[in-house]
């Protein structure tokens, strides 16, 4: 029940934020990315508002011993800037620029029932599964080689 409340409330507020800020309109996102055209700075304000609240809020929350409803914080450890991070982010950017959709706004836009959005999300899920599958089989491969 706690998990349900935590997920539903945060997902709803997140979705509301994306809609209110117009990040659910690919034209607005592409307007920000189009420096050579009629540049639209809206996305900067969204990032500024988001980072300001999260920066201050995280400072307080991460000082606590543990989350309210979980045994520990699951925050990624500091790591190196490696090849998967660089190539993955580069590939993501191409898809983002092409469509104006990143994962959050795409999922929220499913509510419109538009065929194009559904196609985008299905393809995105397929891409995610492909990489996860490749990782698992590669991990299994190295495991076997070690044996």
């Amino acid at each position, binding site marked *: 029940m706690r998990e349900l409340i935590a997920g*539903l409330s*945060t997902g709803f507020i997140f979705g*509301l934020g994306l809609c209110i800020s117009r990040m659910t309109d690919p034209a607005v996102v592409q307007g920000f990315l189009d420096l050579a055209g009629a540049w639209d700075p809206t996305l900067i304000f969204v990032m*500024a508002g988001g980072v300001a609240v999260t920066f201050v*809020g995280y400072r307080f929350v991460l000082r606590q011993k543990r989350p309210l409803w979980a045994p520990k914080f699951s925050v990624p450890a500091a790591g*190196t800037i490696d090849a998967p*991070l660089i190539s993955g982010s580069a590939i993501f950017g191409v898809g983002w620029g092409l469509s104006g959709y990143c*994962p959050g706004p795409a999922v929220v836009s499913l*509510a419109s029932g538009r065929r194009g959005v559904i*196609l985008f999300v299905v393809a995105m899920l397929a891409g995610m599964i492909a990489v996860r599958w490749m990782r698992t089989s590669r991990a299994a491969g190295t495991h076997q080689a070690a044996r």
Partner: protein
Amino acid sequence: MHPYILALIGGGLIGLSAVMLMAFTGRIAGISGIVAGLLPPKPADDRTWRIAFILGLVLAPTVLTLVTGDNRIGQPTIGPALLVAAGLLVGVGVTLGSGCTSGHGICGVSRLSSRSAAAVAIFVATAMVTVFVVRHVL
């Protein structure tokens, strides 16, 4: 209200959501990670909050329509074939790169993570180049 003020408020709500999720479950509010955790092979064990989060995301514009009469969802700017190609690139990219605009852009940057800062610089750069090529070169 001016679009930039609404953008600031909307961004603030996204931040509030990220802080709440961290306070409740100790998790990063990264949409790609939340979604990918539900997918094969080996879906994560903590599926309830992930499914509820996605439900909340889709519910938001629905409630917004009931209250204001406008869900503020725009229409795609490209055709179906390109949307499929872009969706594939986004899915592969965010999984390989361990995050998207929310996980790296909002949560990672707020944690002063150098990996996230690098990711944001790279995906904003390649997205800008892509838009430039599509709109001004081709």
